[in-house]
């Protein structure tokens, strides 16, 4: 099965069809998707601002990351679930839309970066990590997640 065939299969799925035929399902799911974006933005920024030496700088990075983690993972799951539904309803459009691929690439990199390199830096909690390196990690994280959000918004523009 080629990739395009798979996308066509998604588009023709019962779920995608139901969403397409409803006047309000797509807007509703999209709005929840947007709320998830706002929430993940907050959870990511609490940690990234701290890594940048801004925000809650008197408190340990590791502690803040532990506090923010459930919200970050929770909203990520919410976004993947709602995003999947949105995708099913317009898979073919996504296939031909550059913004969709940009977003997926950013999302992949953001997830990998967050759960590998960034997690390592956070766990070290300043020990053996230069402040400059922490800042670079935070900026990369913000850039990748911004790519996900803006790429996603751009899928809606034709």
């Amino acid at each position, binding site marked *: 099965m080629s990739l395009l065939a798979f996308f066509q299969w998604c588009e023709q799925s019962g779920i995608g069809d139901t969403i397409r035929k409803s006047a309000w399902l797509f807007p509703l799911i999209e709005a929840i998707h947007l709320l998830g*974006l706002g929430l993940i*933005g907050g959870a990511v*920024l609490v940690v990234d601002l701290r890594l940048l030496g801004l925000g809650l700088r008197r408190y340990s990075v590791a502690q803040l990351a532990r506090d923010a983690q459930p919200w970050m993972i929770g909203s990520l799951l919410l976004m993947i679930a709602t995003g999947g539904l949105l995708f099913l309803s317009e898979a073919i459009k996504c296939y031909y839309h550059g913004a969709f691929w940009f977003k997926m690439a950013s999302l992949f990199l953001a997830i990998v970066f967050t759960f590998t390199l960034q997690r390592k830096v956070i766990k070290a909690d300043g020990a053996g990590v230069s402040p400059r390196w922490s800042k670079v990690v935070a900026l990369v994280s913000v850039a990748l997640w911004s790519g996900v959000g803006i790429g996603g918004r751009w899928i809606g523009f034709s």
Partner: protein
Amino acid sequence: MIQGRPAGLLIVLVLGLCFLLTAPRAAPAYIAQKPNELARQVHLISSDATGEKWTRFTHLSKAAPLAASLLQDENPAAAPQGSLLAFFQRMADSSWSTGLHESRYAYDLIESVHVWALCLFFGLAVMFDFRLLNWTMRSVPVSEVARRLLPWTVVGFVIMVISGALLFSAIPLRSYQNIFFRAKMIMLLLAGVNVWIFHSGVYRRVATWDVKTAPPKAARVAGALSIVLWVCIVLSGRMIAYNWFDCDRQPQRPIINFLTSCVPTASEH
């Protein structure tokens, strides 16, 4: 939640917006007497229920000279002089407004900035509200979270207001009569009042409940209210793009026409 002087700024801004919406007694109604002329700007918007207005705009921009000339032909006298409606009509007819909504990338870029700043503002404001509800960062004093994070929400809010005003100026007439836009402005006012009540009330005694204890009920209520209001503001903001209740889609229920200040012509009943 925003503290101190920025809170005042927020309230002034929101009050100003709400004043713009509610003040005019002279002519609140949109009189679509000549739908072919007056409502033309609304007609630029896709009537596809799930499609976004942008789809049609982009399509139209290819015929921009035509669209621009049509807009200039509109009859400004149709809206009562001195009314808000006439004001937004003139705004819609301005080259700034038509230029913005017909541009290939400017509108998209501003919209993206608006969404990006939403993460900064809404995300951090909600994290602060979660702290008030004792759901996160329990080891960090509330006052510390307020001092370190709320300035960032102010930055986010300012970007939201500026980009939002630009988006409004691109489509002023339709936005003004959009039910979700009106709901959003009212809820912004309520959110501002909530911020003011919190900071002038229970937050003044923050030293007594800063850490090691659950915030008092008043603080938890403020946090919960803030979350509910901002969630509804984001939802209604997203819904402004859909034209289910637009003036040019008649017949609508009388309550909808009342809330959007629409007066359909006889032929539209």
